[in-house]
């Protein structure tokens, strides 16, 4: 595996304000990489820098080893799908898809062939003669994808392409998009603010926040082992508990937690010393709930303050003796359905993760 695209120390300002950067990352061959983050985090700016629609103030962008930092978009070999698809309203589907091929001076006979083949790939055969306004949202999205892919770009760029679809279609398109991407084996950069999309589709996710990269990881790593409070809170539900480092064992630490007791926590303990303030992170579904105290007496005693039923899960709000509230989610099976509000339970916080405490 080698990198198709590399960004090194890329930085972009808008007037006085920092747009994005410095940003470093690379996209491997055939990889589906997602830029994930809240609006205004710089993910679209980063994508536009990759596409050449914006030129960075500092840093370099290389594609297949070639420096393209200052290259105009028309000379880059990339296919970009826009959020609103940006289909040319005055051209037929055929002319839309053929556009990039015509710009590359491909022979007319070959254009016809490649357009119809690509429309088949995206699951829309035979719509060449239609006008964009005659298509549904999902169909337009496929045409936009075909238009970006037909030029056989070395990189496919997707700018929130699913956000204008309805919920059902969005879910189906996730899988189709991923399936097409894998079939063609094309390196892809995908921009989204939706973590479900990012998780279901990506090989790797770049989590961005206020213009910089927060964490680069596979979806599983990002969920299980966030390295910052922002990453932990942006992705999924999380319980954060104040604590102090009591002792260090390799990468793990034993933490004196605010809710009483000491807990072993995985994490980047290397930079920490005994006595440092830290956060303990535990996902709601990783909290064990027992109706009787455990034999070793390590469990935390808590009262069920609230219980919400949401179909396949039960969400418990638990208050410990020290007054800290934790959220736990459990399958709505008989075992947990019987736990009534106001009853006393014992919590197992076995799967804790160590996070630096930001000042």
């Amino acid at each position, binding site marked *: 595996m080698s990198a198709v695209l590399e960004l090194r120390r890329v930085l972009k300002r808008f007037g006085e304000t920092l747009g994005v950067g410095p940003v470093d990352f690379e996209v491997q061959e055939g990889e589906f990489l997602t830029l994930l983050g809240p609006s205004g985090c710089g993910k679209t700016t980063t994508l536009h820098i990759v596409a*050449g*629609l*914006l*030129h960075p103030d500092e840093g370099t962008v290389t594609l297949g080893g070639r420096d393209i930092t*200052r290259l*105009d*978009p028309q000379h880059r070999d990339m296919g970009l799908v826009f959020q609103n698809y940006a289909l040319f309203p005055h051209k037929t589907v055929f002319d839309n898809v053929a556009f990039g091929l015509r710009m590359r001076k491909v022979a007319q006979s070959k254009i016809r062939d490649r357009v119809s083949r690509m429309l088949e790939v995206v699951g829309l055969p035979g719509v060449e003669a239609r006008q964009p306004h005659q298509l549904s949202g999902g169909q337009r999205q496929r045409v936009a994808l075909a238009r970006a892919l037909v030029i056989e770009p070395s990189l496919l760029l997707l700018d929130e392409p699913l956000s204008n679809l309805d919920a059902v279609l969005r879910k189906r398109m996730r899988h189709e998009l991923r399936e097409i991407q894998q079939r063609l084996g094309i390196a892809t950069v995908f921009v989204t603010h939706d973590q479900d999309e990012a998780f279901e589709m990506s090989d790797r996710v770049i989590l961005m926040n206020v213009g910089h990269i927060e964490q680069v990881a596979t979806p599983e790593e990002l969920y299980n082992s966030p390295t910052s409070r922002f990453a932990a809170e942006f992705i999924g539900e999380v319980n954060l508990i104040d604590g102090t480092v009591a002792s260090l064992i390799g990468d793990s630490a034993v933490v004196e937690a605010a809710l009483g007791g000491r807990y072993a926590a995985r994490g980047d303990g290397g930079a920490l010393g005994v006595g440092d303030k830290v956060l303990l992170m535990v996902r709601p579904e990783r909290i064990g709930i027992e109706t009787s105290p455990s034999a070793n007496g390590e469990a935390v005693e808590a009262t069920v303050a609230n219980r919400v039923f949401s179909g396949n899960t039960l969400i418990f709000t638990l208050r410990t003796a020290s007054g800290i509230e934790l959220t736990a989610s459990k399958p709505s099976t008989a075992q947990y359905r019987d736990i009534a509000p106001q009853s006393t339970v014992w919590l197992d916080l076995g799967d804790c993760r160590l996070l630096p405490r930001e000042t």
Partner: protein
Amino acid sequence: MRAGGGIFAATLFTPITVLYLSFLLAPIGFFLVMSVFRYSPMELYIPAVTADNFVRLLGEEHYRNIIFRTLRIAALTAFFSLLLGYPLAYFLARTGSIWRGVLMFLVIAPLMTGVIVRTYGWIVLLGSEGTVNVTLMWLGLIDRPIKILETEVAVLVALVHILMPYMVFPLFSSLAGQDPDVERAAATLGAGRWRIFFEVTLPLSRAGILMGSALVFTLTAGAVVTPALLGGTKVQMLGQTIYDLVLSTLNWPFASAIAFVLVLCQFSIIFLYFKGGRRRAG
């Protein structure tokens, strides 16, 4: 600015910049500079700096009268255009009529026919055998035709007619841009029809009034054709005087001095407009 747009944008702006600089601003600048040069019947000008042109312009009663007449007619034209244009703009901005598009077109259409066409229309209407005189005689109000052409009234009426659309457009913009809820709010608070108009609608359309008045005033001040045809030699205005000076006596420096006064009027009007506008915003 998008990537690499700098050179492209500069290229796009080149034609208009060259055009405006070399065929609009530079010639006008040069022409106005001539106002301080000396006149020579043999040459275009003698490049010796002098205040003679301005001294003559302000010193001779004939020219002072022309300046005052021009300012008076310009002010009156702006005033009457406002008086007639405001109800029209208000009506167009508020009407729900399906004919609104047509009515709007009827305001713009006369503008497109050009100055000559409309001036000619007024000659037919106001002439000694014209519609106005014929009608007045038929009604028995007068015995023989009254002289309307070659009076200030004729020039004024025609100028109001010709320039009124320029008043209507800015007024319409500012009236149509008002949030109708503001008037409704005033009504729910107990304000009557006139009260609403004077306390809400009129103050909110101030920008349009200023813009329209400034536009009509300056366009009147520079009018040549209408005063020449309807006023003859009796109602001389500044624009016409410049025209005569250049084409008959070739006195460019003196024509330039008059043009300078014209531009000065215009700039003071624009200055007042922006000052008025800023006061409103502040």
